[in-house]
């Protein structure tokens, strides 16, 4: 709280990015965790909550006649453009936000103060919800070829791996340790996924320290052990997900890639996914395009192309598809690495698992997948997401890309996933929110040191509680689709408006099929209950059997009416110049909106049950419906 000098500023305008409409006017509050803006000019009270951890950048723009502009870019792609009346206030808010949004010490992160008022036991149970051992058992491990070892229990093999790792039974301790000396940061080949049906495995590691000619017998034995754990195939793939040039350049630094001559029966392949720096600048360009004020179609498509974003998404997807195909169709095991094996490798391995195994397309499955391939295997969330004040060059949207790949698959296979788009967005939000302990730190060892299991909550039980709103009504169940073979031609990839223009509601479809179907699902349960209920009552009375009456199917009941999806809709600025007014200068202020009965405030996805002090001072958040005035002119 010591950073907050001005907890409340009145007469703050919130500009709309896309229109010339009169901006909202209201009050800005700073709390320990959130920036809250309360729009007082709207007919209906509207609040915007921005978590400090979500703030990526704060900029003070040159003073204008109406005040001092403050531009906030968030990590979940919200852009808020405030105009504060007094320069002094603006400066204070600005300096406060700079500090609040870039905590220096891990203890300052939200997760350590977040207290949802639940029994202590629940918190502990929550952390046990995902047990990776169960997933290995599901794959049939341990078996004749693979075992779960605690070889890394003291982080002796690799300090960014978890204590328990899955390695071939044939690889003894000497092999494991020997191999670890020959792999960048000791990240030896370990199992990521075993395709039970044909014993083909996906394994992951970091680049070998081969330089121009170095060899390591134990590493060669390690790969041999992996290949031999799949007796059905005479060879295995070694996939380097980097562009060949990058890999070659690494040889000068004593790193590099596997020489096919040194390893028995491997087929080596480059895949060419770009590094974190290229991805960071690609996203930057994409966001600039998304932010452009009323761009032409040409501007948008050219910008989309120049950003390279979809090219990178396609590269990741292509790699995932290659892995899945090798395992499923060629029955060959694959060893995947990039440089350190925690970015591209994580993307590609998790995507391949998702393609091969319907379990990972369920709620629980996706959680397991993220825990296994990302959290446990040391994807450096803290650095990639910039949780703490640190090196900006370490920040990169690696996990965002994985999230998008899953979304692209959901577009092609709408019935194959148990969850919907909102689930992905919610996870993505919390990767940055630091509200839960899961994504803190960079690896298991660091999380232990931070005592996150004792001091923070796990995200997963929190998400499961909200399962109803995250489910995909079209999901056809676990057995409907086995492996997915997505089309990876360029036209199969769409721009994800729901992510990168998520807060520009005016751009989204005005009626939401998902809401409509979710409504149907909840209605279905109610109807089934009342049908059973009524059927139970009827036999006690005399009269015709219900079936005979069922022909009266035309009756429309009031409860059907209530399922109507709310529609948020007003015209936008279709004329490039300010809208033509009538001679008398009046604008027709009419609202073509159906107020919904169960409007939820979607603006503040991070729940704030934990802020009773502020909560009591504010009225209950009201509907989204009329805020539309902000979206358009």
């Amino acid at each position, binding site marked *: 709280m010591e950073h907050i000098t001005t907890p409340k500023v009145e007469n703050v305008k919130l500009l709309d990015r896309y229109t010339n409409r009169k901006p909202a006017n209201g009050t800005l509050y700073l709390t320990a965790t959130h920036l809250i803006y309360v729009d007082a000019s709207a007919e209906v009270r509207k609040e915007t909550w921005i978590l400090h951890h979500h703030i990526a950048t704060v900029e003070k723009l040159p003073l204008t006649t109406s005040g001092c502009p403050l531009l906030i870019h968030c990590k979940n792609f919200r852009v808020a453009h405030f105009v504060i009346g007094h320069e002094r206030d603006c400066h204070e808010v600005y300096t406060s936000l700079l500090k609040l949004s870039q905590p220096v010490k891990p203890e300052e992160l939200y997760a350590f103060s977040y207290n949802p008022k639940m029994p202590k036991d629940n918190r502990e149970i929550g952390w046990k919800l995902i047990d990776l051992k169960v997933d290995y058992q599901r794959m049939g491990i341990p078996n004749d070829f693979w075992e779960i070892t605690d070889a890394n229990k003291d982080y002796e093999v690799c300090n960014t791996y978890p204590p328990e790792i899955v390695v071939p039974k044939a690889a003894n301790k000497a092999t494991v340790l020997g191999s670890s000396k020959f792999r960048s940061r000791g990240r030896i080949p370990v199992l990521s996924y075993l395709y039970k049906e044909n014993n083909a495995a996906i394994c992951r590691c970091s680049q070998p320290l081969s330089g121009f000619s170095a060899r390591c017998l134990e590493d060669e034995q390690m790969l041999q052990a992996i290949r031999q754990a799949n007796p059905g195939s005479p060879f295995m793939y070694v996939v380097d997900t980097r562009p060949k040039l990058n890999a070659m350049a690494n040889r000068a630094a004593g790193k590099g890639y596997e020489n096919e001559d040194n390893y028995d029966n491997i087929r080596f392949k480059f895949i060419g996914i770009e590094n974190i720096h290229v991805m960071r600048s690609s996203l930057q360009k994409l966001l600039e395009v998304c932010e452009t004020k009323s761009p*032409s179609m040409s501007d948008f498509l050219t910008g989309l192309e120049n950003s390279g974003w979809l090219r990178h998404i396609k590269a990741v997807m292509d790699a995932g598809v290659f892995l899945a195909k090798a395992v499923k169709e060629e029955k060959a095991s694959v060893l995947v690495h990039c440089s350190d094996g925690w970015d591209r490798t994580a993307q590609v391995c998790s995507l391949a698992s998702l393609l091969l195994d319907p379990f990972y397309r369920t709620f629980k499955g996706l959680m397991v997948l993220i825990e296994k391939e990302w959290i446990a295997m040391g994807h450096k969330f803290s650095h990639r997401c910039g949780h703490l004040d640190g090196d900006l060059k370490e920040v990169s949207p690696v996990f965002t890309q994985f999230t998008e790949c899953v979304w692209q698959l959901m577009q092609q296979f709408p*019935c194959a996933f148990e969850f919907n788009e909102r689930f992905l967005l919610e996870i993505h939000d919390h990767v940055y929110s630091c509200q839960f302990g899961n994504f803190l730190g960079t690896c298991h060892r660091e999380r232990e040191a931070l005592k996150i299991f004792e001091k923070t909550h796990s995200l997963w039980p929190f998400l499961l509680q909200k399962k109803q709103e995250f489910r995909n009504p079209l999901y056809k169940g676990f057995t409907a689709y086995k492996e997915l073979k997505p089309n990876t031609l360029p*036209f199969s990839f769409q721009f994800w408006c729901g992510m990168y223009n998520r807060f520009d509601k*005016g751009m989204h479809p005005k009626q939401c099929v998902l809401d409509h179907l979710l409504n149907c699902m909840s209605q279905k349960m109610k109807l089934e209950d009342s*049908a059973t209920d009524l059927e139970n009552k*009827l036999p006690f009375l005399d*009269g015709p059997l219900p079936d005979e*009456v069922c022909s009266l199917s035309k009756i429309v*009941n009031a409860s059907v009416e209530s399922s109507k999806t709310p529609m948020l809709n007003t015209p936008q600025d279709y004329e490039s110049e300010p809208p033509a*007014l009538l001679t008398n200068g009046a604008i027709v202020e009419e609202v073509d909106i159906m107020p919904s009965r169960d409007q939820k405030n979607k603006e503040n996805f991070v729940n704030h049950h934990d802020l009773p002090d502020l909560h009591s001072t504010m009225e209950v958040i009201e509907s989204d419906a009329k805020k539309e005035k902000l979206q358009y002119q």
Partner: protein
Amino acid sequence: MEFAELIKTPRADNVVLHRPFYPAVEGTLCLTGHHLILSSRRQDNSEELWLLHSNIDSIEKRFVGSLGTIIIKCKDLRIIQLDIPGMEECLNIASSIEEQHCMGNTHRKQALSTLDSVTLMYPFFYRPMFEVVEDGWHSFLPEREFELLSSVTNEWRLSYVNKEFSVCPSYPPAVTVPKSIDDEALRRVATFRHGGRFPVLSYYHKKNGMVMMRSSQPLTGTNGRRCKEDSALINATLRAGKRGYIIDTRSLNVAQQARAKGGGFEQEVQYPQWRRIHKSVERYNILQESLIKLVEACNDQSHNMDRWLSKLEASNWLTHIKEILTAACLAAQCIDREGASVLVHGTEGTDSTLQITSLAQIILDPRCRTIRGFEALIEREWLQAGHPFQQRCAQSAYSNSKQKWESPVFFLFLDCVWQTLRQFPCSFEFNGHFLIMLFENAYASQFGTFLGNNESERCKLKLPQKTMSLWSWVNQPYELSKFKNPLFEANSLVIWPSVAPQSLQLWEGVFLRWNRSSKFLDEACEEMNNIIEYNKELQAKVNALRRQLAELETDDGMQESS
């Protein structure tokens, strides 16, 4: 059949057919007067191909040794390939197809000069296999539309001034005009408007009594010719003290240039009560080229991501979609939000004008979002309004004729409707398949609906007597069921689509239709259907049970009391 005799080689054996989504199949190829048929003589009918000659957009021949290959590109964007053994056979077949194909296209191109040859087209020979319950030719008569209008206002009348098509050759015999304007005045206004297309009523907005009219450009020329009847006509639609908007679908520059050719636009001095807005919408063969480029981009599977996006951009198709939708939204906004009447025109008033007026109605009028209402809209704003379908749809994306009159104007309109449907998935009674079906039939059809360029031609061709209407077929319950949107819930509101680039998408149902399987998307549609249907059944069951329970309770009550 006389033209069947023209066919040099009516059949060929051992022909191998390649087409999207089916394995190659060998069979016998037959050419009839109107169809290209391939039959594998297998039990399964899916192994057969029936292709209307009029659906063929272009043909290519290739030879490898003695094996000839004919590649047929269709107007519905499908590409099929026929491998024919023997060079001579192949050449003969190819030239026979070409002849048929060319004949079909000459009909369309020279429709006016060789009206007779149109009567050789398939719709004149097609005999329906279904019983006609409702004759579509009489489903959407102007009189009926006028009746609907009369129930809400008496300020308009139905004029038969164009009974003989003498005042305006591209207008229908009956048009709706302000009551205060007599036929004589209409005749005079007609001489002042391009092609005689004087301002007529397009849409009446019940909510506030504002109207949308359409016409062609005024013939002001360089010396600023005037016509007081013209201003009287459009002023008759204004309320006292109110202003109206003229939406000109050309840029100011183009409109000014039109004066040199005798055309022009409404000058403020002569129309002080009107404010003119220029909202440029592209026209003619520029649109056709855009279509050609887009389809080329979609069909080339060797593109990488950058190349695909750059081709998509360079085609400008989505730019046109954005332009058209924006202009339509503006027109709707003037009417609904500004409470002003609107006149829409470009040059001829047969293309971009109709795109704008029909889309504005979809935005404003819930009726246009029902199946019946949408059919009525197409009849009113496209067919009777004189959109020259035969010329515009003579060729599609594989055309190489580069004729100015070929233009996917109607196709773009359907795409804009699809974009709106995508943004308001619960507000339309029909689904995307309905729009695709209309696209197909506009370009090649067994029905007579889209033949001819206007009502006058249709009348001369006696289409209603000699051909079947598309609506007669579509409006059968079984056919309709395929075109219904399960999410539809009548929505009486105005719907405002977003025209941001992020909100507009490639119409995959048409452009990617033959390039990738839609199996999983179709499954999703089916699943959605199932969910909604099941709920409806459940609801019906619960209602029935409730009613029964209530009845029994009343009975019991009566027994007790008696």
